[in-house]
């Protein structure tokens, strides 16, 4: 394996900065890989391609966090149509109205200050 010039995380974040949700694809396993890494967890191969998701997915699991201070908020696991899962949240809807099976679409939540941009989702129907 040659020396890395860019980390998997840096590549992922640079896509988010362009408004894209990127993931890796393992040709040998013929399936998506997420979170980004340097080895395919299905084959052990270092052949991983970067791809950009169409940004459509389905809520796989959902919870509402009730912090000691502040408003309740959603945390969800989203299954993207390309076959990878990530943690995110569904916005533009009450946190307890997010349901498993709900179709959602990706948008970038821009980071502020030191924070990197992150992928969030909104109901597809909206």
């Amino acid at each position, binding site marked *: 394996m040659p020396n890395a010039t860019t980390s998997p995380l840096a590549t992922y974040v640079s896509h988010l900065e362009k408004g894209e949700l990127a993931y890796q694809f393992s040709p040998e396993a013929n399936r998506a890989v997420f*979170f980004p890494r340097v080895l395919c967890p299905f084959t052990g191969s270092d052949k991983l391609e970067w791809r950009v998701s169409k940004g459509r997915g389905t809520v796989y699991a959902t*919870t509402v*966090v009730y912090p000691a201070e502040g408003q*309740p908020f959603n*945390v969800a696991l989203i299954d993207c149509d390309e076959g990878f899962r990530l943690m995110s949240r569904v916005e533009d809807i009450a946190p307890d109205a997010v349901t498993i099976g709900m179709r959602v679409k990706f948008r970038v939540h821009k980071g502020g200050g030191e924070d990197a941009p992150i992928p969030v989702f909104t109901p597809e129907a909206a």
Partner: protein
Amino acid sequence: MEGLKRGAAAIVGAAESDLGQVADDMSPMDLCAQGISRALADCGLTLKDVDGLFCAMTQQRMSIISLIEYLGIAPKFIGSSMTGGSSFEFHVAQAAAAIQAGLCNVAVIAYGSTQRSVGRKQASQREINPYETPFKPFLPASAYALAASRHMHQYGTTREQLGEVAVAARKWAQLNPAAWEKKPLTVADVLKSRMISHPFTVRDCCLVTDGGGAIVLTSAERAKSLKKPPAYVLGCGHGVTHMNISSMPDLTVTGAKAAGEAAYKMAKLSAKDCDMVQLYDAFTINTILFLEDLGFCRKGEGGAFVSNGNIAPGGGMPVNTNGGGLSYCHPGMYGLFILIEGVRQLRGECGERQVKKHDVAMVHGNGGVLSAQSSVILGTSATV
């Protein structure tokens, strides 16, 4: 676990340290040492006999070294696998292997935590994960809550059924003099308590207490000459499926399935041979998931299985007879306490909460966020 001999090692000593809210400025190591002293007294051995030492802790970065320093001993074999709350079940398999291989003969497994005294955040440092942390899941509760949401969606499991788990644990705790929470609790109380991470209220979540303890293992041969009836290690197995909840392949099936299957195979037993289950109930969904994955009921039927007092005192299947992490104690990592309870039940030492038939105990540890599962099947001399 293949290669490990059924019944070749036994747990011969078991004890808790002070529990609940311990004296001011007691350290995690003080609690470890209390547990070790009491567990050795329990079997009639002394520190001089100990030549194997295992521990894992959240407040001590190199806990095994700290413990060696504290005790002033030079064990021939040491181990400190850190798989969260299931570390101690992993240690049992490792200690049994070391004893079988002749690397040590008397192994102590210890734990201590002052999580209640110093506060949850001080006791356990969270790692930053750039793919999860920005979404502020309240960990570990939110990870288990996500699993619960999926189980409810797929199998129709209800919040009331989750509540039944908490109520059963409380009823057992009321029979355990060492338990922390003994106030009467109903399913309605669980549901109307302060919400933490839906569907969990604070009563679906384990306690935050101080505490520690230790167990002592030795060869089956040596075990016979010691003070108390041995609890033989009949089976061990593990299953590690992920670290972070977003990487768990299926939120309704845990590594307990592989762990249980391996342990049953080694023990030449099945779920129907187990007289009790001592499992790691960090959250109410754990009990349901593990009872399913360990074969006590079919997948999806855990909610019904825990209902109508079936796992409570007087029910069909005794589960977490000490009151569990939900009502007895939960000092950060709870896995050692289910081993202690399993040993005591097999010996028939449990007073009011004693299970009538007590030859085989399934002890199941959980670490991380349903991440690292480890099963240990213990049995009395009648089983070997």
